[in-house]
């Protein structure tokens, strides 16, 4: 084996042993954190993000209220120890503001803000670990946290990073790959197949774009299934805790109560 790490070797494996279109392990924890109305800890491989959603509630300052819909406020914090090299980013760091703006604009068409006029929805994102695909993880985590908070959405927003290694497209890039390859992050709405975010910081050949977009949409559907499963599981535990009947669950619990 050569000393150079190959992005994609002759046998079709990537540096971390994945195939070309294989996604990293997804971990979703929807249990309640701090005082948030809804929260989610999501990890794509080694990238881990905690999202807390508060609201809809009264805005801290009157100037931020909008008379006919809710204002979405996104604050992003990156842990100083989350990267390989320690770097403390202040709250007003350009990159952080940009990411926060990207998350905000992704969710502006997704959240039914018109239902909550003159209120504010706060989305606090805390990046705990970074290993590529931070924006993607933030967006997926935010979708889950919003659902967990019971805020009406038009659809899920599922985000994925994709890149091209010469002519072969790759999905869900790790940090190593992100540094070497042209890549973009896409957020899609699985029900309608629409795209709410396309962002890229590197140059990508236009011939590759269509193929990548198609793949990303497919990957988005896979993520949607995963997220739906997690939401379903969480709802079932909540229902079981409340002892309400729901087709399939909870009935046995209620019956037991009658026996007493």
């Amino acid at each position: 084996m050569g000393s150079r790490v190959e992005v994609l070797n002759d046998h079709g494996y990537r540096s971390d042993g994945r195939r070309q279109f294989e996604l990293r392990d997804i971990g979703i924890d929807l249990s309640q954190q701090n005082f948030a109305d809804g929260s989610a800890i999501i990890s794509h491989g080694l990238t881990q993000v905690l999202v807390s959603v508060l609201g809809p509630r009264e805005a801290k300052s009157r100037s931020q209220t909008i008379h006919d819909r809710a204002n979405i406020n996104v604050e992003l914090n990156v842990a100083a120890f989350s990267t390989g090299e320690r770097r403390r980013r202040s709250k007003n760091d350009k990159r952080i503001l940009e990411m926060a703006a990207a998350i905000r604009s992704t969710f502006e068409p997704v959240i039914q803000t018109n239902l909550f006029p003159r209120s504010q929805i706060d989305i606090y994102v805390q990046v705990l670990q970074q290993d590529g695909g931070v924006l993607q993880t933030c967006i997926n985590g935010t979708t889950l946290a919003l659902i967990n908070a019971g805020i009406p959405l038009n659809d899920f927003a599922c985000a994925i990073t994709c890149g091209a290694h010469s002519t072969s497209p790759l999905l869900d890039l790790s940090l190593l790959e992100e540094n070497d390859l042209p890549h973009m992050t896409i957020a899609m709405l699985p029900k309608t197949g629409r795209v709410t975010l396309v962002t890229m910081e590197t140059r990508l050949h236009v011939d590759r774009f269509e193929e990548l977009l198609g793949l990303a949409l497919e990957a988005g559907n896979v993520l949607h299934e995963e997220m739906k499963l997690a939401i379903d599981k969480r709802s079932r535990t909540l229902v079981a805790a409340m002892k309400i009947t729901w087709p399939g669950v909870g009935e046995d619990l209620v019956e037991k109560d009658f026996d007493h």
Partner: protein
Amino acid sequence: MTQSSISLSKAEKSYIQAGLLCDPPHRTDGRPLKAYRQVELETGVAHLANGSARVSIGREGVNTGGGTEVVAATKLEVEDLDDGGIEGGRIICSVSCSPAAYPHLSSSALEDLQQDMSIVLHQILAHRTLHPTNLGIIRGKKSWLLHLDAIVLSDSGNAYDVMFMAARAALWDTKVPRTRSVEYRAPKGSKSAVESEGMDIDPTVSGFDTRQLSKATDFELPDYWDEGEILDGRERWPICVTLNLVPPVHYLDATLQEEAATHLRLLLAYSFPTSSTSTLQGVRLLGPGELSFEATKSLIRQGEKYALEVFTSLEAKLRDEDFRRYQKAQAKFSRTR
């Protein structure tokens, strides 16, 4: 600056205070005055850090929120003594608070709070009496800079104690990479080679000359099976106990509501270098109010007793975590091989 992040009405405050002053005292969650809530601790939570820990207090079960939760992690950086480094390494501590932990604070108030907490943590932990001996790399040239970052993910009272526990656990968990110094040696046969034969041994000219600089110019990281050696003097890192004072009585581990109803708090940081001796590493009196000299003396004495209890159980848990992560992992590894 107000110390509490929630606002309580006067009636609520006096209700809590009256409960504390009752005989027997009543607290909202039914605890005795000197009892802590349940503490949970896990080390090694951040893979990219040299040491890390997550500590929470008062979280009941997995699916319930609330409780105070702090994640702390250490990261080591190589630093040249020419630009800012100090012989033997240095430590910098900083604290950041998640806005989700303080949903009612404005961002500038949050920044102030962060600053306050950072200063307390830094002044107590970065003191020279606690400084580990193995943070130097090359005498006179390079040393390690240890960054300790703590994030308050949620606060339901007593954030300082939890923060110090997390900091202690993260420092306990820290591994310093092994280094080997490299020096230039002239090729054999030339005149200067005679003087520098041993790689690591400094040729001693005079026993009284303390200005000797090592000849090493750079260092390398030898490949070794573990991540390095443990940070020296990890038993010494202090424990903080916050005594919440409602004049005749004091109580421990206040909840957020109790904190808002208590005006005066005394932070005491104790270090236990050996199990029988203790040193007081820091004292802070927070909040408006005054404390008589006599009362302070007796509080410091009682604080030591509480701190020792916390120290003993934390120590046991940390050793347990070490066992879980290293011995058990090793046994598992050797089984599969």
